[in-house]
């Protein structure tokens, strides 16, 4: 994990961006297919084999649409807001590791764009900035459904950001670092129980933190059952009501990128990231394990959407502040206590 020439970083970043943007497009296909299966349908079938060209068709359609700006809208803010959501969502990918330092064609390559020592905080921070896109977009649309969606979104993100952060503190206490790369490699160590050896995934030592994180991540990405900012049955399309064409698509894709990033984040923090059989022998296998974990998370997201009704706004807030937050604090206290015992500072 040493320094590397800037051009290698550039290539790695470019590769990761490409993979992310492609996978984002295909997450929409994945969601359509999986949701359709849940609902006794087929999903897209006409565009290519098994509808595999559907993301392309969607993109062509959306690009061909008129980019409408309502008269009531605050024009500049309205045009700018979707970019915030999209870019910040993409930005979080910078600190997520897809492996350690590997040898490719005889060159040392770091399989991550950057490894800053507050990587976890960086993701939380970009997530918080991302909500500005929603608030500004909803506010500047000049539509009351958008406004309500934006206000809901602000309140929701503030509440769940807190839980998201708190649920991670346990891991920081255990590992003593906030660098995602370090956290991930801590989980590559094996624990042995007699004849059995299992990976030291933090989902085992931090089960409560994991559950809290997953709930908060669903809320953070505005997905069902916490999709109140865009609750289509109440707010038409929430903050996206007035958006059309590619600006609508930017919000839409921003949401999917957030989903992927949150899945990557969860996999890195709790499920060992690239850890898995054979991952330390060949880096490609590690990436495969990571992708499989992310796909499992995405499946879970879609499963929730297919099954659960939507929370009401006050219930959402009640859940965050009255149930999840005390649990998160309890988790921190208990983890800290065991850490102190481990250090021999108690008893």
């Amino acid at each position, binding site marked *: 994990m040493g320094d590397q020439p800037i051009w290698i970083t550039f290539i790695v970043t470019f590769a990761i961006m490409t993979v992310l943007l492609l996978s984002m497009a295909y997450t929409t296909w994945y969601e359509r297919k999986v*949701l359709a299966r*849940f*609902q*006794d*349908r087929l999903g897209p079938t006409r565009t290519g084999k098994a509808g595999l060209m559907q993301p392309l068709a969607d993109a062509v359609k959306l690009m061909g649409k008129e980019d409408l700006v309502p*008269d*009531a809208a*605050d024009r500049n803010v309205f045009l700018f807001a979707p970019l915030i959501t999209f870019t910040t969502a993409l930005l979080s990918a910078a600190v997520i590791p897809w492996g350690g330092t590997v040898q490719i064609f005889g060159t040392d390559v770091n399989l991550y764009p950057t490894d800053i020592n507050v990587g976890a905080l960086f993701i939380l921070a970009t997530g918080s900035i991302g909500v500005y896109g929603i608030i500004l977009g909803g506010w500047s649309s*000049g*539509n*009351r*459904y958008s*406004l*309500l969606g934006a206000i*809901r979104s602000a309140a929701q993100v503030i509440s769940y950001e807190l839980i998201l952060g708190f649920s991670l503190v346990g891991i920081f206490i255990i590992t003593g670092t906030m660098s995602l790369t370090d956290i991930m490699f801590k989980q590559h160590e094996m624990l042995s129980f007699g004849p059995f050896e299992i990976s030291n995934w933090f989902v085992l030592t931090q089960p409560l933190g994991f559950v809290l994180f997953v709930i908060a991540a669903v809320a953070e990405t505005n997905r*069902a*059952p916490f*999709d*109140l900012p865009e*609750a*289509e*049955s*109440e707010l*038409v399309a929430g903050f996206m009501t007035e958006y059309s064409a590619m600006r609508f698509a930017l919000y839409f894709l921003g949401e999917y990128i957030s989903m992927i990033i949150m899945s990557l984040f969860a996999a890195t923090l709790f499920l060992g990231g690239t850890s898995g059989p054979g991952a330390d022998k060949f880096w490609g296998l590690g990436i495969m394990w990571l992708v499989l974990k992310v796909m499992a998370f995405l499946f879970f997201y879609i499963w929730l*959407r*297919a*099954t*659960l*009704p*939507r*929370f*009401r*706004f*006050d*219930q959402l807030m009640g859940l965050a502040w009255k149930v999840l937050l005390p649990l998160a604090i309890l988790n921190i206290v208990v983890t800290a206590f065991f850490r102190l015992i481990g250090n021999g500072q108690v008893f």
Partner: protein
Amino acid sequence: MEPVKTPFNVMDSTQTEYSGTLMVEDEHELASGERVMTLNMGPQHPSTHGVMRVLLKLDGETVIECDPMIGYLHRGTEKLSETKRYAQIVPWTDRLDYTAAPQNNLGYVLAVEKLLGLNAPERAQYWRVIMVELSRIASHLVWLGTHALDIGALSMSLYTFREREMIMDIFETFCGARLTTNMMEIGGFSRQLPDGLIPQIRNFLRVFPSKLKEYTDLLSANPIWLARTKGVGVITPEAAISYSLTGACLRGSGINYDVRKADPYLVYDQLDFEVPLGQFGDVFDRYLVRVEELRQAHKIVTQALNYIENDDRPMMAYESAYVMPPHMGTMTTAEDMQRHFVWVIKGFSAPVGEVYHAIEHGKGEFGIHIVSDGGSMPYRLRLRTPDYVNLGVLPHMAQGAMLADMVALIGTIDIVLGSVDR
């Protein structure tokens, strides 16, 4: 809260013309100094079940005032009926509550039969019961699917429409049409039963209970569903009576009134079924009542089908002069041919009089009041559609509800705008 910039002119809220989704007569201040936001929900809104418009005054997300506005689907059915002969009105009733066309047909046909003093043969009555109860299942399934969809349970509508499709297929086999069935005729049924109808219904009856269990498994114990429906939109028994609610809205509040029991028509007094009642009168109780009604409707269809399956008596009251003669008669005898000619060209002249007949529609009491001046068309035809009356309770329920509850409240009344606006 800063007011939203609006390009529209400030208008009086009583004015019905407006443009855009922003509705006008903007923020006014509460006593506490806070501003009220006026939100115009509909007529183009995903959860108003058609083209209803609800004018909401919101304090944050809390509803202070709710004003449902209807009439966007008004087609003048009552007035049109005055220019149509009795038999020609049946297709118009299809378009009232288009999720339950056979029930509308039945309500109208029974009212006319009451006016004419006509009784359909027993076999036809049983088949009417079968079709109407299947239609009740279909309309309740539409309600369950859309209501759950409004509250956010996305998949439910696809599951319920899957079973509704089977009923639509049964209707198609029976009468050739799926949605606007035009199924009932004055005097019974003039067509033969098609082959394969009974096995098709049997198949549906066999499949349906397990599917119903699937729906209730997904919803009845779901904590989010309970949180969204329990204690929401409570109607006390007194309020239910004073708003003259009928159907599940009334029975959800624990009042035992079902036209099928209170004033039996067709052969309902010979069938064994129960009337489910709610306890607290909230959205959840009305959900339970309707789900139980699905079970009871299944039970009724099973009984009626068992009784009538091997019957081959005539289905039409041909002895009456008000009924079109049988097809073979028209082809072979002069009297029947003349009667057929007059019936088609001029219709029959109904006796002078005034009747009201009500049936238990899937949504409540569906009543038809006909005034006849002795002509071949009604002098006046008045429709009492259940969801129009039930909709009146919406402002009462919406007091202090959250915005998200509004969609649950609109859903729980089970409105179809075709029937509300007429």
